[in-house]
């Protein structure tokens, strides 16, 4: 033990861990081999994404070779033919509208609700939470039929407003759960101190709650944006040519159409880009959000 101790400390000092990771196994000697394995596994999982981006930058002919041509010259032709499609921009704009507006609505409804469930909790707050969660567990596919019939009857078919409302409903329960866990981090002593100092509700919210909860609110917004942007079943069932979103547009590539791999890859890359950016931005809070606040 005594002989190995200095070596261990030296190695640990070299690999100074980032602050957010908790060190817990001082006794395990870092074996560089496991680092190499982790890198290989990471690369293996990232490979399809990297391949998608690389293929989107190849010409159609180079994209469809066997064995693959890794070093083929790069071109933006795939992106040109994607944006050359007259449906591409409307689909992206529809997706952006539906995701952004529904996320704003979710925030407007979920912040007060989470406040009433965590900071000034109503009685039976946990029953309310579990009711909300249970609505999210019900399969959307079982609601598509009545929603479709209602949309036909009320003239709401193929309207972006319909999707906005449905995405708000879809994300609201999850957002309230996430938001509750983020607001619960506001220390009650701070709230009491603010109250004693005579701060009103608005002032308490602004100067006590907001600073602690802001990163969580941002992460919740990003996750709701991601869920809305990705949604296919409702969009495909309730929209057509006018209000079709980006995932609906992507389904036009389901059947092969000759040499089109570069174009498919470009389309998949463009449509995934906002989610990748939002996801990496929310990385630190992603687990807490996705596990509905159950995991910190």
């Amino acid at each position, binding site marked *: 033990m005594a002989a190995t101790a200095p070596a261990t400390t030296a190695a640990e000092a070299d690999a100074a861990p980032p602050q957010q990771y908790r*060190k817990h196994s001082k006794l395990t000697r870092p074996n560089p081999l496991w680092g190499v394995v982790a890198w290989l596994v990471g690369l293996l999982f990232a490979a399809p994404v990297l391949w998608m981006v690389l293929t989107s930058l190849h010409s159609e002919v180079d*994209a469809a070779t066997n064995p693959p041509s890794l070093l083929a010259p790069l071109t933006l032709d795939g992106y040109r033919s994607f944006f050359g499609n007259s449906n591409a921009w409307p689909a992206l704009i529809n997706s952006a509208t539906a995701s952004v507006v529904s996320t704003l609505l979710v925030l407007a409804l979920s912040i007060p609700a989470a406040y009433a469930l965590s900071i*000034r909790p109503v009685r039976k707050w946990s029953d309310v939470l579990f009711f909300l969660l249970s609505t999210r567990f019900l399969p959307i*596919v079982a609601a598509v039929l*009545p929603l479709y019939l209602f949309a036909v009857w009320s003239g709401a078919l193929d309207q972006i407003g319909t999707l906005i409302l449905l995405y708000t409903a879809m994300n609201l329960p999850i957002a309230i759960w996430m938001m509750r866990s983020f607001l619960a981090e506001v220390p009650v002593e701070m709230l009491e101190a603010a109250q004693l100092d005579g701060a009103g509700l608005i002032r308490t919210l602004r100067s006590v709650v907001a600073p602690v909860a802001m990163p969580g609110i941002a992460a919740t917004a990003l996750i709701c944006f991601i869920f809305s942007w990705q949604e*296919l079943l409702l969009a495909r069932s309730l929209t057509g040519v006018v209000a079709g979103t980006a*995932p609906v547009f*992507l*389904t036009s590539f389901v059947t092969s159409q000759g040499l089109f791999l570069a174009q498919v890859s470009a389309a998949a890359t463009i449509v995934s880009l906002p989610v990748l950016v939002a996801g990496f931005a929310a990385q630190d809070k*992603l687990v807490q959000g996705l596990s509905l606040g159950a995991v910190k």
Partner: protein
Amino acid sequence: MSVEETTPRQRTVLAEPAPQEQRAASRKSGWVRRAPLLPALVFVIITTQLPFATTIVISFMSWNALRPNDRGFAGFGNYAQVFSDANLRSSVVTTVVLTVVVVGVSLLLGLLVALLLDREFIGRGAVRTMMIAPFLVVPVAAALLWKHALLNPSYGLINGVLTWVWGIFGSSSPPQVAWLTQFPLISIELALIWQWTPFMMLILLAGLQSRPADAFEAAKMDGASAFQAFRYITLPHLRRYIDLGATLGAIFIVQNFDAVFTMTSGALGTANLPYTIYQTFFVRQDYGLAAAQGVIVVIGTIIVATFALRSASSLLKEDS
């Protein structure tokens, strides 16, 4: 977290009005407290409960949009049809197999990757970011990527790599697999496992990092092997995180529509329940039958969700 979390229950107690001014005041303050919650609650009730109530009503009707004049009451006719339909029974099996395989394998892989990422090595943040990427590709895009760019028999990357590897060893006849026609369900499972392993990894990694350090180190001091420490300290601690990952994963994968729709369009025995319902509704336009199928899926989901709620509530209790 540097801030101590106060529990909601504690807050209810703290904010309770003094006994003297109870009754009227508490009734009024009750509504003041409830007010911020009401808009969200009313919105959720209208948008989620009404459609499901309508689905139940339609499930007892004989209603096919292709024969608009035949609309009427069907009693349990649609349900009888659901249970006697062989296609539907096979889509139940497909749904179960798909969910169990994808959740099981991605949990296992997620655990292994989480154990790797729990160690200290150079570039850990970068590897973590790379691992998350699959989860952040839009599901339809991911399904297209697997269908066309990876699994295509003539120019897909996987067969391409096989050609390349065999080429290195001088063979001109590498194995070329028509993945989507020979192994349709496995192909879908592969794509979904690739997307869901990062999700499981994130939850389990958070679990590993919340592991109490002292118990683990005490075990090591006492001469426990790495495997024993894992088996008797880490795994019991991870148990709740595994439950949570499994149930949340199951809820999303039972509902999967995108991958099945995009990769095989439900052909070759890959139609799961959501796809079958979509098909009954959009292609056969048998609304009564689709609604009955929907009700049955809801009942199945409630059974799964009961477990999910239980594990969510065990974590919530610990919270309080």
